[in-house]
């Protein structure tokens, strides 16, 4: 049995996050910032990571880098509550200042790859053409991403229902 730790991010940028990390460290409460599930800050905006978007990957400021890379647990989930991540060179990628930002998404993909985790985008799950709600289940073995089946089946019984 294990605990599952979640950070639910709001629309804050890297300066606020830096302050949160610094204050937490000052009080010796680093453990409070450990996470298994992270709902991203500001819809996968690069500004939650650092001041510069970057070409292919946003570089996080030191405190935010620590928060993502050191405080994430093995098998972690990063959930981006956002539209699809723009493809490189697309119109949204080149011209839309609003999140989600491809470069930020690349940062998050790298973080989870190093932890055998998963990066999930709400409007891409289970598929871009037909996104649907999904669940993060809290189990004895940690958090698990579960797609919601739209069809029902008979009870998964292994009993024939009669004995004699």
């Amino acid at each position: 049995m294990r605990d599952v730790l979640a950070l639910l991010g709001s629309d804050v940028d890297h300066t606020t996050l830096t302050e949160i990390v610094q204050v937490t460290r000052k009080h010796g409460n680093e453990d409070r910032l450990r996470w298994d599930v992270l709902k991203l800050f500001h819809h996968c905006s690069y500004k939650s990571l650092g001041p510069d978007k970057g070409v292919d990957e946003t570089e996080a400021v030191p405190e935010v880098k620590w928060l993502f890379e050191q405080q994430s647990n093995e098998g972690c989930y990063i959930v981006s509550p956002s539209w699809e991540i723009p493809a490189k060179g697309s119109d949204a990628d080149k011209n839309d200042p609003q999140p989600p930002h491809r470069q930020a998404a690349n940062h998050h993909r790298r973080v989870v790859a190093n932890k055998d985790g998963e990066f999930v985008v709400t409007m891409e799950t289970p598929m871009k053409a037909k996104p649907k709600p999904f669940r993060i289940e809290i189990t004895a073995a940690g958090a698990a991403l579960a797609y919601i089946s739209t069809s029902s089946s008979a009870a998964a019984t292994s009993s024939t229902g009669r004995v004699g």
Partner: protein
Amino acid sequence: MHPWATGWGEEIAAAHLRDGFAARVVEFLARSDDGIATLVGARRHRAAEMLVLDIRVVRPQSPVYPINRVETVGVIFFEKDGPRVMALREDFPDTPHQNWMPETLPSCLCIDDRPWAEARATFTPAELLSRISMWFRRACLGELHDAAQPLDPLFVGALLDIILPRAAFDATGGPPIELVGFCVSEARPDHILALPANRFKDAKVVRDAGITLVAFDLSAQAMARMRWMPRNLEALDREMAARGLPLIEELKKRIISWFGDPSAGRRYLDSKLCLLFRIPIIHPLTGGTGAQSTIGFLTPSTVGEVGEALGVLYKTHSDHTKDGSFMRALVCGSAATATIGLDGVSVHQAFDGPLARELASAATSLAENGVLVGAGAIGSLVTETLVREGAFDRLAVIDHDTFLPHNIARHTLGAPSVGHPKAAALKDRFASIRDDLALSVHDLRIGDDMPQETFEALQAANLVIDASASVPTARRLSDGPWLGRRASIFFNPAGTDGVLLLESADRDVDLRNVEAAYHRLVQTSPTLQEHFATAAMLPYTGHAAA
């Protein structure tokens, strides 16, 4: 992907599937937008067809088994059997609840253990995909095994079934168990009933059908993928060595020891060898080891021949003996273990009191010593049920009556018992249910004069069941000097009510008191208003009805 999958038949377009159910699964996937299963491809091999699917697994951060977030499976559809689900990852982990497969084939997931004839009526594409998804989810959480499910056997592929007495399961060390094995039904030539050899006076029977059984206890292990039963001693030795048992060396020691037994040595050497391995299984849910897997192997060869193959004995032929006899090899030869064939046996324990109580979920026996007074219909029904639930180690049956044709209507006995004393016939029936019951017959009516052995049986009883349907008998039993608890069972005159009068365990409230309370209840309870009313009956005086 497992190389087996890419070499299985030929690739086909999903639109060209011939199997109706497979085609429905493809249609279902096309309509479904939940992303749980994705069609990767389709193949055909003779009459069977396979869909290759990617399954999105509900995989937690720390799965119990190394299951991936997306697993590729091949679902094979057969004309006349249920679908088989093969995990196509080459390094798919060994988990419980996989069907047995040869080593060269991928893992086969056990998603439904119902017979296909039972399951097919409700099996839909949604059910199939739901079961596959559920299997992976449960594997990740270590919940593949339901609490009510029997544990998977360690080995499959037994050719024979053998019924063994309890002594075979309790044997630890010491001399081997000597048995005689019979095939009891021509319709079931693969079922062997093994009985203790000391029941048989005829030495030839023991020699021709003798079985020498030896049991080994192994250390506890977790449920794992089922393996095929080894077919020879060499393969069995490898399996047991992996579990810490040097089987060949143990057998050599034992056969040498048996050879040296002056009284039983010849019997051992002439008999077939039966090996039992008792392995406590670690329950996947509780972690406890209450359950035990018992694996059996029977040699077509005699113990002597096994000893010869192991190099510890050799066969001699002299002018004085028609048959060869075995001698101890002064220098042990090399063991030709691959030449010693084995028949894997499914092992069943013979029905006895402890097993009966286990099956009835009875922690202890209702009563060790019982007496049944009245071997009529109700006595036969109630007592037989108790015997089948493991009650009694000793049981005396008392009745003076003879079993007649009209008794068959409600009795447990049948036509072969007609003309026999009821007590003796019922005793034989109880003996046929449990041979560990010590039974005695008292062909008499309970009266003031009672043979000593009947008195002693009543004296020793913890429970006396009066099924005589006789008020004087019930009262005589109640008043008797014996210590055991009494119970009286009977029907009302119309046969519409069954009545049980049971004393308190300490007999402070005895049968007479309970009878008084019964009569008060009948007099005062509106629901029992018709209790003593008579109904139309067939009067019977022993003569055929006109």
